[in-house]
């Protein structure tokens, strides 16, 4: 079934709603789904208008302003979430499968520590896309994040596997302490490759860490400070 969710009003404090397509399976469960308005526990239908379309899909459509709603798609395993607007922090954190499409912009922490599935953002994103959460030693482990606009700082920190594609520009510290996987930034990026141990970064233009060495094929390898075997291809070189 498809569940269409609209906020009843503007939120003054942030809402934490770990909405996944699974809640679209049953109307009663969806109505009673636990969400948090600040530190108050609420039911989903208290804060949002819910509308069900009986079809064969497992899908959630978010309509309206969700820029103060956090943790959408947390740990989702399948199905689809479509956000027709902007969305708040931690979209698709720990995601394992399925697909999230955002028609607007995202806040920070898109796909934090995600393991699988796909996130497509048609607008811009904030910082720390596909990163590790504070204190964790490994970031994104699989799946794919595509950002059609620009991204902020710290893209793919401590990334282990998977792919991040930024069609626009990215901020500083792309792929810091990266261990594997691939990051593509088609436009410009700031500082890139700091303490990179493995994986591939392709970037249009960037300020590469000075601790990289150019090999015979014109590919930069490093970061030598950490005996890294990362590869950085600068497309406009």
């Amino acid at each position: 079934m498809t569940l269409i969710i609209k906020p009843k009003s503007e939120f003054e404090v942030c809402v934490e709603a770990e909405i996944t397509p699974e809640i679209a399976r049953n109307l009663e469960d969806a109505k009673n789904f636990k969400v948090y308005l600040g530190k108050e526990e609420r039911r989903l239908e208290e804060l949002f208008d819910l509308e069900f379309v009986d079809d064969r899909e497992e899908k959630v459509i978010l309509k309206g302003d969700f820029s103060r709603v956090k943790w959408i798609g947390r740990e989702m395993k399948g199905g689809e979430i479509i956000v027709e607007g902007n969305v708040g922090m931690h979209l698709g954190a720990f995601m394992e499968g399925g697909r999230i499409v955002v028609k607007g912009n995202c806040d920070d922490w898109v796909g934090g520590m995600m393991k699988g599935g796909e996130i497509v953002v048609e607008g811009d994103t904030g910082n720390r896309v596909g990163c590790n959460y504070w204190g964790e030693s490994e970031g994104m482990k699989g799946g794919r994040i595509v950002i059609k606009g620009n991204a902020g700082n710290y893209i793919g920190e401590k990334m282990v596997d998977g792919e991040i594609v930024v069609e626009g520009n990215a901020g500083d510290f792309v792929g810091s302490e990266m261990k594997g996987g691939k990051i593509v930034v088609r436009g410009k990026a700031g500082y890139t490759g700091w303490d990179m141990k493995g994986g591939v970064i392709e970037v249009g233009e960037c300020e590469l860490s000075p601790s990289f060495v150019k090999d015979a094929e014109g590919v930069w390898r490093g970061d030598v400070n950490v005996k890294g075997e990362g590869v950085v291809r600068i497309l406009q070189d």
Partner: protein
Amino acid sequence: MSVIYIKGGIVVDPTQGIDGEIMDIFVKDGKIVEESGAGKADTVIDAKGMTVVAGGIDIHAHIAGPKINAGRAMRPEDMKYARNKSGPLRCAMGRVLMTCPAIGYEYARMGYTTAIEPATPALYAIHTHEELDSIPMVDKAVLPLFGNWHLTFKFAAEGDIEKMKAFIAWAIERSKGFGVKVVNPGGVEAWKYGRNVHSLDERIPGFEATPAEVLSTLIKASIELNLPHKVHVHCNNLGVPGSAETTAETIKLAEKIGASKDGRESLHITHIQFNAYTGEKWRDMGSGAEELSKLVNRTPVTVDMGQPIFGHTTTMTADGPFEFALHKLFKSKWINKDVEIETGGGIVPITYRAKSPVNAVQWATGLEFGLLVDADKVVISTDYPNGGPFVEYPYIMTLLMSRKFREKEIEEKGVNSYIEKATSLPSLDVERTFYEIVKMTRSTPAKILGLENKGTLKVGADADITIYPFDCRNVSPEDYEVLLKGLRSVAYTIKDGEIVVKDGEIAKEVWGRTFWVNAVKGATQEIIEEDLNEVFRYYTVSRGNYGVREEWIRRPETIAIEE
């Protein structure tokens, strides 16, 4: 304050020799009273079929102070685990390294009402008290660290018991502490030069004293001072094969000195499991628990288990050299802390794995102590957070009570079969009775701490009461699941005469007291004036930096020692 009747419960109170009698308990104004003095009840709890015991006491848990706080900062990933995020209570976070509210709530939900923070540098006591003041639900106290303080070494080298007494009294009064904690005496001083001490008779670098002299002087001084809780020691050589020998020597020191004036034990060896390994290398390490238990049972010494729990945790102790060794072993992130002051500690995240032979031996060794040492001498602890979270005490209690549960855990967790060779656990058929478990969590720690109004249901005692939702007379070790469930989630916790937990959920947030010992009248303070001034003339901090005023503490309660 209200009057509560607890009707028809099955009462277990080792301090009065009551083992499963159906009795009524009356509570008024935060105390347990006679029926005649109770008056009209505001609340009647029907405890039929339930077990009524005193509130639990944790004798050793690092719940406040600079180390746990640095640990929280170092391990933000631990804070992903939310224990309470909505409602009138405060936000409670943390899987092992919990926030202050989480610590209070979890103790109460487990039926514990008192907890002791066992290692704080006197200089940072003010911070520790602020953190303790943020922990709701439980009564608490703090033990300042003495084992690596230059003045301790000086008085120990001189063998001057009078000066040591005055110094202990001064430091405890200044830090609003409760007793004397010693961590790796001399070893942490050596750590400041990148070394450690390896035996009790090795000279501490830069001083004339040895660890044995430091310990003996401190024990003698605290006996003479009549402190309610005597010396609380984390032995030298902790966490390495061969440490059992050092522990045995430490116990013998106390044996030579003898018991306290009131007949209680004069030394508490904390988290003994971490200090009870035989062998020379990790490859041939084994458990020294059998021998040490016999030794503990016949000497004036008490212990707590320091039971490790399989899974992730964070070690933190004021034993810098040991933590450095751990950091080298696991190549993990670490913090080296407090070396610039009268102690020096470290923090290292680790994981206890059932399949690892070393961790399996540690797990088994802790349980051996819990099974082999007299219930009057051993207290359940995980050395929170070093062995694991204290919320696992019900799990430990069940392991001690049921051999079947132990066998199931060994089987299911795949505990390394090396324990069959290196420990006696698999062959031990000891099963602790519920009465003994109540001793190990209530009356024994209260006795060791010298808190007469705790750990008992006597008339006049503090009304700290736990009501478990099962009949302790009918639960057999075979029904370990019932036991585990009941122990994990109490029916009621009553703190100072108020119902604070009902059916495992917090019913009311209350604030406990902070006990501290004022022993300044027990020693002539003037005799150390010159020594103190001399030290602080060259120290980087001044004497005025030490000191917590009573009015800065939320609910201080002084235990004054006259003469």
